[in-house]
């Protein structure tokens, strides 16, 4: 598949390489492609142990997640591991330890970044701030204004990750808290318009930070029946986002959804269920062979095994 895309993209280039001495062509081939592996979770909800009973019995669990991640890291050079929020709340581990263990485990698994979900306020904004020292990864949030809270200066709107030759820009988005989370918990956190912030962030990452790939880490939710802002709506109303890694709606997807954005370019939306049952994986291939009109730059979904909840 990789080969075919390359051939379609630059038939002249292929011809040229064919005519050149082998050491150079080897060098060119090396220069011309890069692969980034993005792994992601969302709404793990303090599920440190596998589900003990019910329809998900025996599934999930931090130990096995760590094992799967470690196995992928052995094979892949450029891995980015992300979480889309609601790390907290759901088992007595959170009731008892306030999320300390959740952050320690994610640190051990070498998460690169996470965003903040509504349940991450369940021990109050002070409870969240208190656990931050246990996380060695940044929390990305561009539309929560924490300036009048204890979280001031403890999150970043975005971060650029350099993985080999590729610059990946990641920014975070949170859901509206009013009516969802008691104000006494989120205090003076101000919720800013996610479409405006996403537009601003994506533009900055694409053009000022010169990112090759722009990822939105979202806790807005996949899709709603009403007009509430969701990942689907966000994708359509913004530009320069390549991938939305979602959460909140506990959505199990057989495959990432592809939506055309405001510039008629494809945006991928993926979500990994909840409870740590699924680890989302996207392998993204980059190519330097030229054309910027993107006739052949479209994201092509190469079907992976469809693994989802057992029924």
């Amino acid at each position, binding site marked *: 598949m990789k080969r075919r895309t390359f051939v379609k993209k630059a038939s002249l280039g292929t011809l040229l390489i064919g005519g050149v001495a082998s050491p150079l062509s080897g060098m060119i081939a090396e220069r011309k492609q890069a692969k980034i592996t993005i792994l992601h979770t969302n709404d793990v909800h303090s599920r440190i142990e*596998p589900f003990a009973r019910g329809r998900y019995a025996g599934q999930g669990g931090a130990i096995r997640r760590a094992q*799967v991640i470690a196995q992928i890291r052995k094979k892949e050079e450029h891995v980015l591991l992300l979480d889309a929020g609601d790390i907290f709340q759901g088992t007595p581990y959170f009731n008892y330890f306030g999320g300390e263990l959740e952050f320690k485990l994610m640190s051990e698994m070498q998460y690169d970044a996470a965003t903040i979900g509504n349940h991450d306020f369940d021990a109050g904004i002070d409870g969240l701030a208190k656990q931050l020292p246990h996380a060695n990864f940044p929390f990305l949030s561009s539309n929560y204004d924490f300036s009048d809270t204890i979280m001031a200066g403890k999150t970043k709107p975005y971060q650029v990750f350099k993985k080999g030759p590729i610059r990946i820009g990641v920014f975070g988005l949170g859901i509206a808290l009013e*009516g969802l989370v008691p104000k*006494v918990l989120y205090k003076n956190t101000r919720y800013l318009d996610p479409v405006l912030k996403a537009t601003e962030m994506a533009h900055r990452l694409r053009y000022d930070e010169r990112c090759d790939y722009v990822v939105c880490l979202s806790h807005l939710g996949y899709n709603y029946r009403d007009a509430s802002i969701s990942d689907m709506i966000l994708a359509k109303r913004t530009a320069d986002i390549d991938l939305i890694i979602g959460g909140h709606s506990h959505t199990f997807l057989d495959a990432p959804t592809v939506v055309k954005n405001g510039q008629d370019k494809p945006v991928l939306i993926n979500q990994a269920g909840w409870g740590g049952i699924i680890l989302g994986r996207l392998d993204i291939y980059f190519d330097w062979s*030229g054309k*910027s009109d993107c006739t052949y730059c479209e994201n092509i979904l*190469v079907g992976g095994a469809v693994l989802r909840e057992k029924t």
Partner: protein
Amino acid sequence: MYRNWFLFLIILLLGSACKGPQVTQVSFTNLEIAGVETEQAAAKIAELVAPYKTQMQVEMNAQIGEVAESLTKGSPESLLGNWVADVLAIQAAAYTGKPIDFAISNSGGLRIPELSAGPLYRGMIYELLPFDNMLVVLELSAEQVQKLANHMASHGGWPVSKGYKMYIKEQKGYDIRIADHLLADDRIYRVAMPDYIANGGDDCAFLVSVEQESTGILMRDAVIDFVEIENEQGEHIRSSLDGRIQRM
């Protein structure tokens, strides 16, 4: 000829280098996390989890009291619902330092069908009340109490505390009495409830505008606290049906 090709290739490369990489394809796999636990990565995680798990198990498996006879859940009133509401009323008064007229919970807030007779372990209260709902107090007018009564009636009756009485007829509350007195228009009633309800949960939007007085304690912790105090005094957990909510 060969040299020309080479030069052309260099130009092509230089030209394309400025444009940056393009995404050519994306492949995905949503990996199911299940299977056998092996490997070192797993060992480190297990090592991190172990002390927390041990500590939690110690606490969750700690006996905090004794249930005299099984408390089952049901409506319009039930042993379990009556007990929880009674405890909430007692604790709300204790934590705010002011008297409470009555306490309620939504039925859905109680998550197990039965609190079994015998030793009461802390973990059982977590199963009964898993949500981190705060216990709050609302000051309601007679009209608002009537509205709440109708709402509870339309749900078949919710857990209410001792001293509150009403009849349910055609999904409405009738002959509501608090401490044996009919509702009075000139009175304000102090009502304890989960903040979930006070914040409009379970279709209680009519309560959202009412100011909440915090007790500063989670419902679950208030109940555990009550059980522990009773246990220290050698009291077993018991409840009774007294017809506080009846169908007409």
